[in-house]
Structure formats: C-alpha cells, structure tokens
C-alpha cells in the first residue's frame, strides 16, 4: 500500500509558481465540467460557446476588455494589500467611492475644460475618495487593532447605501433634477461627451483608456514591489510583523500607506467606470452594485499570486469569462455559472499552493522490519 507523505520544500522552484496556477485552471475546468454534466448541461458545448464569446473576434475582445478593466483595478488593489497580509476586502466599496469622486469632479468642473484636465481631475478625486474610504479600516487597524477584514467588508455595504443616497436625495449635487422625468425617477447627472474618456483602437478592437491606465499602475506597483525599500519592507511585514518591528520598520505607518494605495487603485477603477463606460454615477441594481467587481478582484489577485503583471493577465482571462457569461446568459446558461467557475478556479489554485510549498511524495509502505525504514528515508532529497 502506497503511503503519501507531505514535506515542506526548502526552496520553491520558480517554474512551479507558474506551472501550478496554470495546471489548477486546467483542473478547475475538469471539475466544472463535472458540475455542468451533473446539472444537465453539455460541458464541451458550454466551454466552446464561452471561449467563442470571450476571445473570438474583435467584438468579443472589445467586450472582454470592457469587463476586464474594473477587474484589473480591483485585482491590483487587493494584490497590494494582500501582499502585506493586510486583508482589505473593501475594494468593492472603495470602487463605489471612486465612482462618486470621479463623477463629482466631472459634474463640478462642467463640460468646458480640456479633456486631459477633466480626466486628470476625475482620477485624482476618484483615487482620493477611494483612498480615504480605505483609510477608515486602515486607521482602525493601525491604531485600534480592529480586524480589517470585517470593517472593510462592512463599509462595502455602507458605501453601497451612500451611492444610492447620493442619487435619490433631492439635494444631492450628483442628482439630475433638470427635467420632469428625472425629478420623478431619480437619476445621476450624466457626463457630457467632452468628458468621456478616450479609447484606442489599433485594429478593430477598442481599448478603453482605463485599461491602459491599469496596466500603467501595474508597472508602477511592480517597480514599487521589486526595486524600492517600501516594497521590501512590505514583504518583510507580510512574512512576519514581529521580525519587521524588531528590524525597526514602522509597521503602523506601512499599514496606513498600503491601505491608502490599495484604496486609491480601487478608486481609480471606480472613476474609470464613470469615465470610460457608464458616463454617469450608476446606482441601478444592474450597475456598479450588481457587478461585484471588488470581490472578483480578490479572485484575480489570488490567482495572480499578488504579482501585478500576472494580475493583469488573470484579469483579462476572468474578464473574458465574465463577458461571455453575460453574453450567453439565458435558459441553458443560468446566471451564477460564472461565479461558480471563478470559485472553483480559486479553490484549485489554493489547493495547488500546497504543491508549491510542499513536496508530496508517494512511496511504498515501509516493510515491517525496522532496519528498512532508514534505508527508505536515506534517498537524497534534492
């Protein structure tokens, strides 16, 4: 009878940290196929349609990039914080605040400014709003030792209510009260055409400006993590807060800074939602609040193993999945399937983590005599 033993690896080979996530995506597709077959859907047919809808043709790619853009922002936001073992689950709410800030800047400035200036203002206000919202759990964590998982999550619900309030309250500067219709059916003030964020279309694929902005932020973050003292200290604090304190690092200050950065990135995502796509502060249930970008960002960050460029790649893949799910949604493709798939992919990636950190060895059961046991163990373990 074979015996399974799990041993900690002394060194983690680099290729494994690429191969394991890819393999776990493969495994998760197998698991998902079983779920699909069990609920009476043809897995191969479903996968083919998913892939077609996500990645075949320029129209599909355009929609995929639209779906991917917010995921890149929220994925990066989660990655920054999670890297330091700071569990900011609040990207969802920080994204709403970013949208509020971005839309607020556009409404306040009005349509008569240069587009570049408007975009800059929207980005700054969106990032600042998201950052301040993230600093609430940040300050509570740094000075009150409050569990940031729950506080940041609770504030998501509060942010959602704030978003609704700003559109439904009659005195709100965000609310459009210019026509009779909007006075009875609350709606936000829409952006003017001169305030829309530009798009880039090298071929037939339309790339939103926000997508490029997210890639740029990923590059900045990668530099921050790899080449700066700040990034180094983040890694140390993430590995062991106590060691970091003994080494004289200011963990409290770092918590605040990382929360602020994380919230700012998520906030930029919110501003991009307003500037790139919705062109207004969208409080409908199908809008910002129904999309769960913040929570999906956690999947993106974990699958990308908190590496900024990997996060971008995973963001595009999951964006494709989300876009295809939305496109195919119907009787034979129930909504919820995409979330199930994301969950399964994440479970498999988590399980796969074991293979990166540990060596699983299957060996023959040691024979009954005691002398044989050391011989079996004496094999060199590279």
């Amino acid at each position, binding site marked *: 009878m074979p015996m399974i033993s799990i041993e900690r690896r002394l060194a983690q080979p680099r290729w494994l940290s690429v191969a394991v996530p890819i393999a776990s995506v493969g495994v998760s597709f197998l698991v998902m196929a079983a779920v699909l077959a069990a609920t009476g859907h043809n897995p191969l047919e479903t996968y083919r349609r998913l892939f077609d809808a996500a990645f075949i043709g320029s129209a599909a790619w355009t929609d995929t990039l639209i779906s991917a853009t917010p995921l890149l922002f929220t994925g990066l936001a989660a990655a920054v914080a999670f890297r330091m073992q700071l569990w900011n689950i609040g990207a969802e709410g920080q994204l709403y605040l970013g949208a509020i800030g971005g839309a607020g800047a556009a409404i306040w400035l009005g349509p008569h400014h240069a587009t570049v200036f408007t975009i800059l203002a929207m980005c700054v206000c969106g990032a600042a709003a998201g950052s301040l919202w993230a600093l609430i759990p940040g300050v*509570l964590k740094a000075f009150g030792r409050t569990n940031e998982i*729950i506080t940041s999550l609770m504030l998501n619900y509060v942010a959602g209510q704030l978003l609704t309030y700003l559109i439904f309250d009659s005195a709100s500067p965000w609310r459009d009260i210019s026509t009779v219709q909007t006075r009875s059916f609350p709606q936000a003030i829409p952006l003017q055409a001169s305030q829309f964020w530009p798009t880039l279309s090298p071929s037939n694929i339309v790339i939103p400006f926000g997508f490029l902005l997210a890639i740029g932020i990923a590059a900045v973050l990668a530099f921050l993590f790899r080449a700066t003292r700040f990034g180094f200290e983040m890694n140390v604090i993430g590995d062991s807060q106590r060691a970091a304190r003994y080494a004289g690092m200011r963990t409290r200050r770092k918590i605040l800074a990382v929360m602020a950065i994380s919230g700012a990135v998520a906030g930029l995502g919110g501003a991009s939602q307003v500037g790139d796509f919705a062109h207004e502060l969208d409080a409908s249930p199908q809008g910002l609040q129904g999309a769960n970008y913040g929570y999906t960002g956690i999947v993106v960050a974990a699958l990308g193993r908190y590496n900024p460029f990997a996060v971008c790649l995973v963001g595009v893949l999951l964006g494709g999945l989300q876009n295809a799910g939305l496109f195919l949604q119907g009787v034979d493709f*129930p909504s919820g399937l995409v*979330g*199930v798939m994301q969950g399964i992919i994440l479970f498999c990636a*988590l399980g796969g983590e074991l293979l990166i950190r540990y060596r699983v060895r299957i060996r023959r059961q040691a024979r009954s005599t005691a002398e044989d046991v050391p011989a079996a163990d004496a094999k060199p373990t590279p």
Partner: protein
Amino acid sequence: MINSSLMVLVLSQAVTYGTPILFAALGELLAERSGVLNLGVEGMMLVGAVMGFWAVQRAPGPGSLVLVLAVLTAAFAGALMGLIHAFLVVTLRASQIVSGLALTIFAGGLGLSSYLGNDLGLADVPPKYQLGQINVFGLKNVSVVGPILFNQSALVYASWALTIAVALYLSRTRFGLNVRAVGESPGAADAMGINIAVYRYAHVLGGGALAGVGGACFSLSITPGWTAGDSLVGGAGWIAIALVIFSFWRAELCLVGAYLFGALSGGLPAAIQAHNYKAIPTFFKTPEFLNALPYLTTVIVLVIIASGWAKRRLGAPAALGIPYVREER
C-alpha cells in the same frame, strides 16, 4: 414618545431578524473554537437558503414534514460547503482567509446559490409552505413578553435550545473541552491523543450546517421565497462573523448580540420610518442610512471591543487561523 406597542413590535422583530444571525454565529463559533476561521458564512447561508426553499417546493408529504426536511436540506447543503473549506484548510493547509473568501465568492450571490436557484427555477416563486408563528403554551397574549418571545417561528425556539446546547457542549462535555484544546493548543491536544483533523473537520461541517439553517430562516420564515443575488441574506453572514468576535467566543453572548443586530436590521428602521419622529434629523431617517445602520454598528462595536479592556480578558482561541502540521509544531 415611543409607545409600548411599538416597542414590542421592535423587540419581536429583533428576535425574528436576530435568529438567522444567531444560527450562523453559533456555527462560526464552533468552527473558530476548533481553530478554523471560516469567512464563507455568507456563502453557506445563501446556499442553505436556496436549497431549503428548493426542498419546500419539491419534497412530497404533509407540510410540517416538508418543512423539517427543508431545514435538514439547508443544513446538509451548508455542511457540504463547509466540507470544501475544511478540505482546503485542514488537509491542504491553504490560507484560511483566502479559502473562506473563495467560498463566499463560489457560493455567493453571483455564484452557486444563484446558479442553483435559477437552474431549479426558484426565482420569485410563491412558497408552498412556510414556517409560521407558533403560539407556544398559549402565551402569545401575555402582555409585552408574549408577542416578543412566544409568537415566533419554530426556528427561533430551536435557536434557544441550540444556544444552551452549544454553551453546555463547550463547557461541560469531554468533546467540547477537547475542541477547546484543539483551538488553543493543537500541539498539546495532539500529544493527548486527540485527532486534530477529525475535530476540525467535524466542527467546520457542523458550523456550515448551522449557517445553512441560518440561511433557511430567511427563505422559509422571514421572507419566504427566493430571489436572485445576495439581497436575501444581505450581509448577515458577515455580521455573524463579527458577532463571534464581540461575543468573546461565547454562545450565550451570541444570543444577546444577535438580537441587538436583529433590532437594527429589522424593527427599528421600520419603526423610525413609520413614525417620523421630530427629534431625529432628516438624514438619519433616510432609508439608506437606516439600511447602513447594522453595518455601521458592527464597525463601531468592533472598534470598542478591540480597543477596550475586554480584549485582554477573553480573547480568541490561540491557534485560530493557523494550520496544524504535526511535523512543524
């Protein structure tokens, strides 16, 4: 002035709305006492809610039997969700935080619960049966106490029994003491001959089952039916996790806390809106503020707990969140 009949209404709603939170919190309490943090409560509740409602619609037999079956189905579904988490964190030693979040995403409003509900055709279907109020011992008409405590659904009475059972289990039984050992010092427990993995699996599964029942409170009793998305449970699972923290990991305090949050999410907002009190500024009467109230309160209470004297007296299980590996203890 708040008149007494309104007060009674608010309090009875507090008990009604607090019950799902109480079930979920007791489940999470069991898992955490064994050293496993499960952040997937919200997802497990949603799956429990949808599967409970499915059983009500499809199971044959007389109404009362169907309802019992529905609660059991919800518990089973919740336990299955717990099994995923237990396998990942106990056997595969994955990060408990990420795994719990993954469970919420997997099972949550845009995931499995929504998939099941839509695929089984449960959205906005009128319920065949629901758990109604039971007038125990004819005490319903006793003033004040009657409507608050003795005119509730069967799940409410079950939750009281469960609170006592969990409290006694953890303090008075051998298994309960073993669980606490596993959560406080798995190394020592292992040396005593306690099987760590079995205890952790059992309590995460049990916790999942209770979360499933908590979800069923919504779909069978409070708002009978099922709607797509996560609005049915609406963050109650997360409040339950917070509740475990500020009940200092004690069952009897969970009950008190659950009813506090029940009041904030159920009766109080309705009462404030219905009776337009002059003393309260307009902003605090908006539906948005009242909806945000339970979440804001959770944050505030957590801050008070974390900073206050309480933390030093009664804390979390020492091994909470740490995977146990015998070779590395």
